[in-house]
């Protein structure tokens, strides 16, 4: 059986999911893996649900399709709790692990009163994911650093602990993808997330 590692990032448009997935893909590629990264742009950028997927393997002929099959995600990174629940089915049975930002972004369908919101998202997450999730105050940490925008790098730091890559490669990829003026604070966010 060819071993493929599947990482799925989910959240809401504007949270920096595409940048995070870009960095992970570069790290995997620079570490000699065969990589595919697939994402959706466009309409979903405007506050809708967003998903990006990265698949990598040591075997150069293992990864053909760009899309992770249902129930095959090894690590699910959720930038928001409702999106974590929505994408629970992506997670690999028994071994899949989720990193979830303890953040609620209320959809306008709920704030406008058109649909019912979820009352206790933590309880639902506990019931679904059991002990296979790690809840992180990424946005809270990012706010202390000055902006909620840095939450993505806090999550990337947490993700890096579960990935078989050297920290130097992560830092190098971040320097490639992030503007020099913002790199220091992003590195700090990453290091806090890595713990």
């Amino acid at each position: 059986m060819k071993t493929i590692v599947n990482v799925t990032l989910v959240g809401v448009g504007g949270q920096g999911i595409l940048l995070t997935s870009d960095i992970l893909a570069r790290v995997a590629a620079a570490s000699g893996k065969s990589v595919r990264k697939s994402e959706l742009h466009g309409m979903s950028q405007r506050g809708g649900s967003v998903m990006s997927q990265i698949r990598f393997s040591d075997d150069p002929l293992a990864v053909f399709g760009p899309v992770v099959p249902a129930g095959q995600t090894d690590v699910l990174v959720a930038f928001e709790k409702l999106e974590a629940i929505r994408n629970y089915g992506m997670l690999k049975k028994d071994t899949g692990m989720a990193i979830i930002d303890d953040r609620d972004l209320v959809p306008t369908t709920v704030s406008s009163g058109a649909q019912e919101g979820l009352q206790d998202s933590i309880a639902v997450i506990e019931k679904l994911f059991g002990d296979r999730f790690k809840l992180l105050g990424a946005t809270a940490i990012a706010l202390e650093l000055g902006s909620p925008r840095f939450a993505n790098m806090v999550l990337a730091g947490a993700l890096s602990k579960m990935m078989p890559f050297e920290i130097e490669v992560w830092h190098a990829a971040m320097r490639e993808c992030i503007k020099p003026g913002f790199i220091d604070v992003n590195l700090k966010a990453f290091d806090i997330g890595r713990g």
Partner: protein
Amino acid sequence: MFNKPNLKFLSGDEAVAYGAYRAGCHVATAYPGTPSTEILETIAKFNGEINCEWSVNEKVAVEVAIGASIAGARSLAAMKHVGVNVAMDPIMTFTYTGVNGGMVVAAADDPSLHSSQNEQDTRNLVKFAKAALFEPSDSQEAYDMTREAFELSERTGAIVFVRLTTRTAHTSSMVDLGDDFGYGNVPVKEYVKNVRKYVAVPANARVMRYDAEKRLALMKAESEKSKFNTVRLDGKEVGVVTSGVAYGYVMEHFEKDSVLKLGFSNPLPLDLIRDFASKVEKLYVVEELDPVIRDGIAAAGIKVEPHDVELSMMELNPDRVGALYAEIKGLKKESAAAEEAPEIPALPTRPPVLCAGCSHRGVFHMLSKLKAVVSGDIGCYTLGSVPPLSAMDTTICMGASIGAAFGMEKAGLDRKIAAVIGDSTFFHSGMTGLLNVVYNNGAVTVIVLDNRITGMTGHQNNPGSGKTLSGEDAPQANIAEICRALGVRRVFEVDAYDLKQLEEVIGTELEVPEPSVIVAYGTCVLAVRRNIGATPYKVDPDKCVACGVCFRIGCPAIVKGDPKGRLFKSYIEPTTCVGCTTCSQVCKFGAISSTGEEENN
């Protein structure tokens, strides 16, 4: 950061750009459209070797590429699938005359309509246009095929299409650019005046009609021996013909079966396919969207097996192709994920919405309030159609808003009718519709949402931006002046954030029995990043009476706060709010005001 100098991690779109660069493309044009936009954005980042532009629409983009080809240059035009419709008129005739410099059209389809108004398969149009077709399955092929497309175009005289779909355009993988990567310095060919070749009047075009057919024969000979059509002979029982992104899903499931990948799929290499079919017992075709390859093979009398699993609508994925595999092999449908999955509670949906602070919000709030029938158009502002704004009655295609509004008026619809169109869409194909209203004595009220940028596709410059694709200064088209020149006498320029003014002007103009244009100006909040350092607004819970009016503007920053009886007071998320003031203008109780604190950034 990679171990070889010419290895690059590229999306399919970027790889097309690199392929064009390597091939020495001289002129590149496009109108932005998801998922094709990054092709020209990438070309613009090279060192200026390729003369590139955002054209005002896809037809113009192709016409510029055609002119460049006639003059001897290698040219590329890029667009999304619906853009190909707009561009078909010049394509259908240039396919008769044939190229001088190689000409490539990069077209990106959007299966599953992630960001489009329809799901159409460009391959039908390529066949219709008697052009050659490459279907890359990943970024490496997107690079190799684009590079080869220019050569093929010059060898055969045909236009060559490189067709991507969302998953090839927006999937990134490693591309080996080759040891000799650089700009391909190909000289511009000589231009020789040739009326019989380039002037498509009937007498010449009748001759060209036969030339087009001869080119098809040349292309077919090429596709029969193309290196992009590859056969993997394995199991004799099942053979799969596939193309594009479907190839990846096929390879993941049909590991022990024979596979024919068609990278060069129009004209079909029928001899190659017939030979492949003769080596397997059962032949299947797996392709994304319409059964174009399947029908072509079947029409040639080669037997293709039917199957129950539906694959012709919406994008493919490993699970759908896996279901086909299970059907063919007689396996019990494996659904490891579905079987024991615990029940997920019903969740609220999260559709895309106008951004917090979007300059379009006020206009839709007013149109909703005035109970106007709104003929909409293509752009971010199509989101004005979703609840709670719900201020749009129809959206068809780029530029249709004005013509459709006029049609409603002609049908005698006795309501206030407004057409709403963005600046880029107005330049694309709204101006002709407006002239038609003026010429035919209509009375349509047109609202142009002018944010000086092409918003939905990620902020591309347009004629109103004052900048070209490559960032050079350009004359800034003035929409109000254009409308006056078209003969509209009632033209108004308003601040899109001034609700009072919007209500007055829109309210008046909807009643006036002659054409009017209201240009609502407000820069794109996402493009100018006003949200960094902007002062958020807040709700005073003592003043808020939970009337709910601010929920009705559909701002993602306004959420339910404290309960008050069965209703909720509103609360503004300070990290999302950019302080646009729209909610404070709709609040009748003075409960919403600025926090007055600069976000520490």
